[in-house]
């Protein structure tokens, strides 16, 4: 993970757009001027963000600042009102986009796992492989075994979600997503529902994914992990990205008032 790859993505999107053409490949995921309202509430107000290939971007922000909504717009679980989203340079918002094709290139992991309770771990992983990619049972089983091994659950393929701990369930959910070999993974508070002693296993898996070069956009309040593993931290407040930078800078010398307030609550509040 060389710094030269990271820095162009870290520059402000407007500058990059304005033609200060980056010498590196296009970003894996790019949000441009995203807006979204629920009724009268403006949840996203002009959100722009670029996530470079193999980059891990952390999103922080108070409850209700629009973090989940931003992630959910990325695979169109929510429909943005305005703005564009590009996946590997290809527009995935607006009409005429094959949603099912786009979605499987964006892996998503939820706070509450959302595993299929009627299927065992293996079949949780193979369902989309077989029905979407049309793989044979043998192919899909092999891919599932590989994905489960990557999250350290090779021996739990036959277990049903109810027979797994929260941390194991979340790792199966990650295996389900990575088996589709997505271009980018979105994590929405992947460890918030876990007992503290189970958090580490999930973070370890995410760390390994990063080492293997996975592009990741992570909403999480695991500050220590962000500090250690993230390439960039983004802070959201009231539907805007108010500050972004390398974790060291955000955590030690935040510029924006709301970032400072948020961080002080997190470090001293509890």
């Amino acid at each position, binding site marked *: 993970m060389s710094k030269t790859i990271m820095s162009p993505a870290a520059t402000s999107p407007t500058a990059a757009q304005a033609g200060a053409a980056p010498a590196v490949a296009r970003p894996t995921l790019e949000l441009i001027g995203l807006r979204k309202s629920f009724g009268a509430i403006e949840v996203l107000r002009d959100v722009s963000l670029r996530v470079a290939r193999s980059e891990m971007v952390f999103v922080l922000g108070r409850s209700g600042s629009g973090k989940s909504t931003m992630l959910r717009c990325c695979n169109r679980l929510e429909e943005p009102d305005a703005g564009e989203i590009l996946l590997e340079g290809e527009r995935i918002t607006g009409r005429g986009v094959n949603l099912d094709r786009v979605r499987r290139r964006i892996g998503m992991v939820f706070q*509450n796992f959302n595993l*299929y309770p*009627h299927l065992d771990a293996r079949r949780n992983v193979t369902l989309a492989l077989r029905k979407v990619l049309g793989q044979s049972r043998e192919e899909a089983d092999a891919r599932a075994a590989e994905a489960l091994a990557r999250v350290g659950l090779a021996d739990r393929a036959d277990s049903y979600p109810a027979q797994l701990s929260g941390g194991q369930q979340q790792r199966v959910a990650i295996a389900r997503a990575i088996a*589709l070999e997505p271009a980018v993974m979105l994590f929405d508070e992947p460890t918030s529902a876990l007992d503290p002693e189970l958090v580490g296993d999930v973070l370890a898996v995410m760390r390994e994914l990063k080492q293997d070069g996975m592009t990741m956009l992570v909403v999480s309040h695991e500050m220590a992990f962000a500090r250690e593993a993230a390439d960039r931290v983004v802070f959201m407040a009231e539907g805007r990205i108010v500050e972004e930078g390398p974790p060291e800078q955000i955590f030690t010398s935040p510029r924006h008032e709301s970032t400072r307030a948020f961080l002080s609550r997190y470090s001293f509040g509890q």
Partner: protein
Amino acid sequence: MSDLDRFIDTFLNGAVLARYAPDILRGVWVTVELSVLIVIAGTALGTLLACIRAYRIAPVSFLIVVYADVFRALPPLVLILLAYFGLPNVGVSLSSFAVLFAILCLTLGAFAEEIVWAGITATDRGQWEAARPTGLGFTQTLVHVVLPQAVRMVIPPLTNRAIAITKMTALGTVIGVPDILNQATTAQSFSGNASPLTLAAVAYVVLFLPFVILSRWLESRFAWRKI
């Protein structure tokens, strides 16, 4: 003749039982055949309609709801008589077996639709949100993710309803379907003895008790949702 003897002679007359047992056995076969057909077709119909309703196409859903409400509101006997005696007047004449099958199938279908629909709506939204981002389409998600969970959830009310409907095959007696009850009442009027009816009752118990026990087994088998 003692009271007990009279009781036995009326309800458990050996000679009468032996004489009419084969008829009732034939009736058992008819009832079994009808029941199996009704349960399979009715449940399939209800499940299919519930799935169609999941697409939320307003006019289609409206028609399904109207059908379900009408068939749940009307006593099946009314519909059976109406179909059997009314339809020939408009040139459609169905056998009594076909009428009984059609009406009970439609009745079970109406209840099954509502039950399965309740299961579909009760399935966690998160299941859709997990499945769709993996590229599964709406129909694929419905069929492979939501429906299996919905059906497991509603197995108990579904089996109860199926049992209730299959017992209604006895209504076929009024239009001459040669089911258990019909054979028994015929035998009863020929012999002037109630023993064939006793035999019919025994036949129903033997027939439906396994169903009831099966439903208990299914209930415990699919109880994975419990903590």
